[in-house]
């Protein structure tokens, strides 16, 4: 593996030290190269730990309440419903493994693990529902793009389940205070919101959204960037647009 031409890109990549072009080229290579993927995964985990090297600092006490207050005002983006409990237990489980016995002595850890199991079950059910939505014979598909360049997205519309599944690629997370919103458009009518979403730091997202009951058909889907919480109607031109194809 030492003579691999791309090898010296993995460490800068893991440290976030490539330019956008360098990164895009390397990621294109990563898609086909399991050796580099494994390398990046291992080095990325190491570089992530550098966060612990920052000089210790204590956040002001008011920050905790502010974050909880702001969270109460925003509905988390649903993929099978509850996100955060599962996140917290995932955190707890990871820490439990890392800290071993010490963690297990902590009060409440048993309940946490029980919740982890319950949440994993929910998560599996959500995955199964997602697959079922995708595999139905009457599914319509739209490929959303902007002039053939990234980002791109695919929307699968399942009229019988009244759900859409959306997969987004190469879309950086929305800036602070902003969010992305998916719209369904029927020719001659006002756009209908299918929900708000944001991508992960790697620019990807797969999510499943309920379609409003009143909406039975639409021809086009589009994505705009909106203020956090979403808008009743789009406030800008969509940067991703796609026409629905197939089905029935």
């Amino acid at each position, binding site marked *: 593996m030492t003579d691999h031409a791309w090898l010296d890109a993995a*460490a800068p990549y893991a440290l976030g030290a490539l330019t956008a072009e360098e990164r895009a080229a390397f990621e294109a290579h990563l898609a086909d190269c399991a050796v580099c993927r494994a390398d990046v995964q291992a080095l990325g985990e190491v570089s992530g*730990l*550098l*966060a612990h*090297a*920052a000089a210790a600092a204590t956040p002001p006490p008011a920050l905790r309440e502010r974050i909880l207050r702001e969270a109460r005002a925003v509905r988390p983006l649903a993929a099978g419903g509850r996100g*955060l409990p599962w996140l917290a237990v995932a955190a707890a489980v*990871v820490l439990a493994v890392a800290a071993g016995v010490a963690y297990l002595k902590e009060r409440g850890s048993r309940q946490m693990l029980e919740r982890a199991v319950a949440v994993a079950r929910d998560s599996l059910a959500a995955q199964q529902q997602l697959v079922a939505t995708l595999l139905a014979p009457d599914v319509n598909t739209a490929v959303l793009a902007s002039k053939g360049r990234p980002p791109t997205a695919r929307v699968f519309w399942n009229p019988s389940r009244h759900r859409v599944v959306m997969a987004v690629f190469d879309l950086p997370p929305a800036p602070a205070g902003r969010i992305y919103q998916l719209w369904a458009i029927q020719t001659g009518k006002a756009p209908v919101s299918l929900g708000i979403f*944001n991508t992960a730091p790697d620019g990807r997202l797969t999510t499943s959204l309920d379609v409003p009951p009143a909406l039975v058909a639409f021809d086009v889907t589009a994505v705009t960037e909106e203020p956090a919480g979403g808008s009743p109607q789009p406030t800008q031109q969509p940067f991703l647009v796609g026409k629905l194809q197939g089905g029935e």
Partner: protein
Amino acid sequence: MAAGDDRALGELYDRHAATAYALALAIVGERADAEEVVADAFGQMWRTSAQFDPARGSVPAWLATITRTRALDLLRARGRRARAIERAAAVGDAGFATPLAGGGDAPDRGVERTEARRLVTRSLAELPEPQRRVLELAYFGGLTQSEIAAALREPLGTVKTRMRAGLEKLRASLAPLLSEGR
């Protein structure tokens, strides 16, 4: 929102906020900005929590990634990146990490975190200075490999080699904190 969700977010905050805040502060350099970054990072985590995929990394790693990205975005938005580059390049042996003695860790449930800090800080301090330097400039300074090469007046290839050597050494010394070491 259910009461359980609220507790979960609080729990997450209690476990990881001090690390996220310290990271943000190391990057942006000002307390008020660091608070913004941490609030943003938790907000993003909250909104996108359903998409979290444990197969791709741990929650603390995810939070650190978001926090770092947001902090570097803020530097750019404030037009302070040039200053950050100067500062990063000018930082002497002290670097971004400080010895634990100067620490004063937050008084929350930080047993695991303190362990991680101790090990990471020590391992980083044990690296040859040129290797530690490039890792810190990239991670905390947000510099690209080419910018680092320019700031240090070293060939790009040297910078790449040091990055890899530094990460490989850390990988060995931090094995207890890594999934492959478990």
